[in-house]
């Protein structure tokens, strides 16, 4: 172990900021983070062991106890559920003879759920030792189970099990013609950096992660900060359930994304950039490294880019299973090798970001768009979309439709047009922007996709009339409780209380007042939480409660009060101790 750790520590240059990357390697090697490794890392990096344990416990893909040699995680996204995930998981569990959440006694295999893996257009999906499994069905599971029992190395498994399709169905102004390599940097340097920033401003480009902050303004704020170093960060921690467009953009157009980052670096004066890639997209890592290597070889990265004296390089950092790291300040914490806990603001990252230096964090799609704007100019981009939402939006469409995949539309497009294009019929509603967004009913399909109406980071999940609105809200509510970082009281406790209260109603234990209580809890979590996760965690309940109040009310019992727990069940221990099971040892849940 000492030799292995020494090798990876040398690779990491003994930098504590690389702790997460180191722990990923230890996990891959030993299937957990052994106590001995924690001791060695603590001493080598000169950080407290408690800090290392805090990081291990924060990220879902790191473990203090050994996982199976084949560690299988099945995506728990609503879209996987709609593709019969529960059944698939049960079958997998029976074939592999291991319970969900357990490691088999012989240590060969472990099985668990995980948050959305970004394969919603080709689910049910999962991960084996970090690599994606798609389109899982019984024959595939039979094959996987056989491969595991034969202890075949994953590199020998048939490639089709890991096939990830792009499923690009509709290309718009960005996807129809990528720029030539180097064209954006060339155009920006020829035009002048200040003039290029003015073009970006004129384009009206707003952040594509969903929040919609003006990109040019962010870059300008950052550029104006005087500091020793500036940093460019590309947020590819695409964790919003139902979103997978960044996966496709990085697979198809990584060059243009890196070019956008290089453009940003030139404008803000950064020499170092990071691509923060969610752990679920490990399969893209080698390919992206090769793209970076090629850009270095062709003078598009390095210390004299295009021979014009520009210095910039990009490092890829992998996440390890934490939705919260999509929040920009949590992402920066994670880049620094810490748990992804959102920072207090102000100061904002443009003033004090990575290592407290001015930093811009932008979405993959934002960099993709910025690169093309640098070539074609601001007016070109502003010519598409609406007045307040210039350009196009790239959507990940999944759920109940004939053709799930990637669609690019100019902003302002009506929902009904999108539904038509993707082949959705008999639609009950659409979740726009993922669980943190809005559920719209089939009475609202004239509404438009735009920051001024329905904003989205790209998730677009279609539900047909066979689906149950409460099941959807429940899946999303459980997701947020699982992903809450736990920093602030309203989100740490509140998201778990929301889960309890919603489960109580859905399980038929709710009574008068319970829906009102649920709603007031939603408002509390929304209004008092520290960051966007908590502030949007109640949206699945709030947006469905607003549209379908009867669905909630109908689950309530027609009594004035009922205990929030199973009264008779709670007496079970007492019955066992008293060795009684007569009628007098039971209590009815309510007085009839």
């Amino acid at each position, binding site marked *: 172990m000492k030799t292995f750790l020494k090798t990876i520590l040398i690779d990491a240059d003994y930098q504590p900021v690389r702790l997460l990357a180191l722990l990923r390697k230890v996990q891959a090697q030993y299937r957990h983070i052994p106590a001995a490794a924690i001791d060695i890392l603590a001493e080598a990096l000169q950080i407290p062991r*408690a800090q290392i344990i805090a990081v291990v416990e924060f990220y879902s893909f790191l473990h203090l106890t050994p996982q199976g040699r084949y560690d299988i995680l099945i995506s728990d996204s609503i879209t996987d559920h709609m593709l019969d995930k529960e059944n698939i998981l049960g079958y997998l569990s029976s074939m592999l003879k291991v319970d969900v959440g357990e490691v088999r006694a012989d240590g060969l295999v472990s099985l668990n759920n995980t948050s959305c893996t970004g394969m919603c257009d080709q689910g049910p999906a999962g991960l084996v030792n970090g690599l994606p499994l798609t389109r899982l069905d019984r024959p595939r599971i039979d094959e996987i189970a056989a491969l595991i029992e034969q202890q075949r190395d994953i590199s020998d498994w048939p490639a089709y099990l890991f096939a990830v399709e792009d499923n690009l169905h509709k290309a718009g102004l960005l996807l129809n013609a990528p720029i030539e390599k180097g064209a954006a940097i060339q155009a920006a340097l020829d035009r002048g950096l200040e003039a290029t920033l003015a073009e970006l401003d004129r384009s009206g480009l707003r952040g594509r992660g969903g929040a919609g902050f003006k990109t040019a303004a962010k870059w300008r704020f950052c550029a104006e900060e005087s500091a020793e170093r500036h940093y460019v960060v590309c947020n590819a921690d695409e964790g919003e359930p139902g979103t997978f467009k960044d996966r496709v953009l990085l697979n198809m157009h990584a060059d243009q994304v890196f070019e956008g980052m290089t453009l940003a670096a030139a404008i803000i004066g950064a020499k170092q950039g990071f691509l923060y890639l969610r752990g679920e997209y490990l399969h893209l890592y080698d390919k992206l490294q090769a793209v970076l290597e090629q850009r270095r070889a062709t003078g598009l990265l390095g210390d004299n880019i295009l021979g014009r004296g520009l210095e910039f390089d990009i490092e890829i950092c992998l996440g390890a299973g934490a939705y919260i790291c999509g929040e920009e300040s949590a992402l920066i914490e994670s880049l620094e090798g810490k748990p992804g806990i959102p920072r207090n603001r102000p100061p904002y990252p443009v003033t004090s970001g990575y290592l407290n230096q001015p930093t811009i964090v932008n979405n993959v799609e934002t960099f993709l768009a910025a690169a093309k704007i640098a070539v074609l100019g601001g007016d070109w981009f502003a010519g598409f979309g609406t007045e307040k939402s210039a350009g196009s939006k790239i959507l990940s469409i999944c759920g109940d439709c004939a053709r799930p995949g990637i669609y690019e539309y100019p902003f302002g497009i009506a929902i009904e047009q999108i539904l038509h294009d993707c082949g959705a019929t008999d639609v009950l509603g659409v979740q726009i922007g993922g669980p943190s967004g809005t559920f719209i009913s089939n009475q609202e399909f004239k509404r438009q996709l735009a920051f001024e109406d329905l904003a989205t980071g790209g998730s677009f999940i279609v539900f047909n009339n066979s689906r149950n609105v409460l099941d959807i809200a429940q899946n999303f509510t459980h997701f947020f409780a699982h992903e809450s970082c736990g920093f602030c009281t309203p989100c740490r406790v509140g998201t778990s209380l929301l889960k309890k209260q919603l489960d109580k109603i859905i399980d038929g234990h709710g009574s008068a007042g319970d829906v009102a209580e649920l709603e007031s809890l939603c408002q509390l979590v929304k209004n008092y939480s520290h960051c966007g996760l908590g502030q949007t965690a109640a949206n699945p309940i709030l947006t469905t409660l607003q549209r379908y109040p009867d669905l909630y009310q109908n689950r309530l019992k027609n009594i004035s009060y009922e205990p929030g727990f199973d009264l008779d069940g709670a007496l079970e221990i007492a019955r066992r101790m008293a060795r009684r099971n007569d009628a007098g040892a039971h209590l009815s849940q309510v007085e009839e």
Partner: protein
Amino acid sequence: MTGTIDIDGQSIPFEDGQTIIEAATAAGVYIPHLCHRPGYTPHGSCKLCTVKVNGRNCSACTFPATDGQTVINNSDELEQDRRRITQMLFVEGNHMCPSCEKSGNCQLQGVAYHLNMLDNHYPHFYPRREMDASHPDILIDHNRCIFCNLCVRASKEKDGKNVFGIAGRGINKRLIVNSPSGQLKDSNMSIEDCAAHICPTGAILIKRTGYQVPIGQRIYDQKHISEVALAQENAHGQD
């Protein structure tokens, strides 16, 4: 930058770099809080000090005062919501005031009195949490930890030791001890440490001192937490 902010109609001066809670405290205005303590890096996690700044909810302990801000600290809505947040802290852990030796000296309890909290409102989580009685002088009862991070900050910033850390995620957060066994006895914690005396609840206690002052004669039995906090925190400012 200096100037004034308006808190509930009262004009309050501030100095450059002060947060809203610091300006308020100096002016004798109490804003309920648990994770804040003068002299420590602001944390902003308990959210009890949430105030409305120009219409927007902000944590008074981390938000900088700037000239002309209109701050609402006392309103029925804030009082109700702060009470709910306090109730969340009560149901998350296992807080049994009548049998807790910190009763009467506990800030969580003191804030609950201040907010007129009469029940727990939410269903209890009843988590199973451990006690660590391994240290000769100091006891950790994890049942009462509210993750305010004060002991972590005290040990790091005041004692230079890093005895504590917060691990886990979401509702599974837990206070951990930086020692090979994970037990306090194997850390370099000592009774003189700031971290041994900073806990606002009864999660970190000094052994053999619990009942030296009888219940009924303790801090918050005698005085309102707002009065105690303002006096202590302004005394600290004059150090």
